[in-house]
């Protein structure tokens, strides 16, 4: 078992990678710039795995015992190997692929400097095609303090998942996305605050919505957000094929 542990784990990783690539879900875990490299390496590794199955001899019992430090060590090592392989199969092949959720939003700095555009980049947005602005563009402008006058005649049309505002979760939520620079591990949440009292009655946290609305001063007296979207209606929607922004 120990000799083949790496080959089996390789197989699990290869099948998961290729399946995610074929079904268009690789973007749930890594930045698109890695797609081609990741798939090519998976295919090359798959060839090596098949060759290994064909030509690598089974180790003798004596070699296997030496390799794992005696018979007792061999038993423990095998148990550990089986555990890792089973865990890999369950997480990579059995569980459905998933995006990050609001649990991670709570852990990370929503609209922190790490996720929004720099001041210079945000300034460059002014005068652009506002209809094409993303959650990241709007959240950057809000963070840079573009001001009430700037937002007064602007309409944002954005899609994101629902996550509550920490300061006034009853009346305000964020329509949020994760910004990814390498893989899901570095994902930073960004979002636009939305004033919509009683939103919990209509939408679950982490459900996806599309909002088209103008900006106003936040009617909430306790929320930390100054400028918010105040939509008349919110449209529930499916998770987009690319849930993260880059």
């Amino acid at each position, binding site marked *: 078992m120990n000799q083949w542990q790496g080959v089996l784990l390789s*197989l699990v990783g290869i099948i998961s*990678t290729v399946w995610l690539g074929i079904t268009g879900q690789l973007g749930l875990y890594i930045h698109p710039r890695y797609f081609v490299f*990741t798939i090519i390496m998976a295919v090359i590794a798959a060839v090596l*795995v098949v060759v290994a199955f064909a030509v690598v001899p089974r180790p003798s019992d004596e070699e296997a015992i030496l390799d794992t430090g005696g018979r007792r060590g061999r038993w423990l090592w095998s148990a550990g190997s089986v555990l890792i392989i089973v865990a890999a199969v369950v997480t990579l092949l059995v569980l459905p692929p998933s995006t990050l959720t609001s649990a991670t939003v709570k852990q990370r700095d929503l609209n922190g400097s790490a996720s929004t555009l720099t001041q210079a980049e945000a300034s460059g947005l002014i005068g652009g095609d506002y209809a094409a602005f993303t959650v990241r563009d709007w959240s950057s402008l809000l963070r840079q303090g573009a001001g009430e006058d700037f937002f007064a005649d602007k309409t944002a049309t954005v899609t994101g998942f629902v996550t509550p505002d920490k300061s006034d979760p009853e009346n305000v939520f964020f329509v949020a996305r994760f910004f990814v*620079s390498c893989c899901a591990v570095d994902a930073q949440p960004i979002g636009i605050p939305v004033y919509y009292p009683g939103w919990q009655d209509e939408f679950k946290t*982490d459900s996806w919505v599309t909002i088209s609305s103008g900006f106003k001063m936040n009617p909430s007296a306790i929320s930390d957000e100054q400028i918010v979207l105040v939509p008349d209606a919110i449209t529930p929607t499916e998770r987009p094929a690319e849930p993260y922004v880059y």
Partner: protein
Amino acid sequence: MSQTLTVRRGPALRLTLGLTILAALILTRIVSPPTGEAGMADAARDFVTLSISVVIESLPFVFLGIMLSIVVQTWLPEGYLLRRLPRNPVARRVVLSLLGMLLPVCECGNVPLARGLMARGLTVAESMTFLFAAPILNPVTIMTTYQAFGWDDGILVSRILGGFLIANLVGWIYSRHPRPESLLTPRFQDTCALGDHHGQPTGKMRRSAVLFTQETSAMLPALFVGAGIAGLIQVGVSREVLVAMGGNPVWSVLALMVLAFVIAICSNVDAFFILSFGGTFMPGAIVAFLVFGPMIDVKMLALLRTTFTAKTLLQVTLVIGLCSAALGLAVNFLV
């Protein structure tokens, strides 16, 4: 009976068995739910997503490193690389710390490559110099750091010089060790000994396949366990606390070093990630992140543990951590 079975288990039977396992795993993926929540709490789902993300991101680099290791051990003529290195130990380590310019594999892939180089005769100290310098001193990392920061605040220069000096310092320290082989795990010592003397399968293709089997069996369990630990820490440690320390010249350095350890991001793109922290953190903290992270993080420690003893890794982590912190503080106070 057992011997009879061993004799009968020929290539055709092994291949059939392998393809059967392949088919079973593919079938498992196909019949498993393609979407959904699997009845898991949000934090548990995020733990799984983050762990899978580390595996999917790192796996191709580990495969690439293993393939280069196989090329070095099997397909290059004996001593092809070592003969070209200077004889003077310091000069050798200097040259090895620049080897990443030719083999830009990323830190995960450097571990199997370094194992292959050691099996071919590189000393422990030399392999450490290569391991810790290559993720920073390679063209992709330098280019992305330049794209992110240009020449601002001496970040690029500090990263290149800092990575070079720290890697060579670690190499120099361990070159003084009286019993360098004791820095390696007994398992890897056996691997090197076997590579030197006997038990080598005949034929390059067969030897390559055996090495692939051996190296994946050493690296992938460590990668999967490291990914699980990284996912667990990500779910358990709030990043807001770290970001709150950004304005203090001392705490900002330590906070970003902790972040680098936890986040375990690839050195080829870490500059883009940390660029957006530039408004919150001081330049020295950014430099400490960019120097410490590629050398030591939770995933790298799991991978390095396949080769080095826990005591060695603790010492190396301390040395690199102290040097990175000193570098970051110097940048904060001098630049």
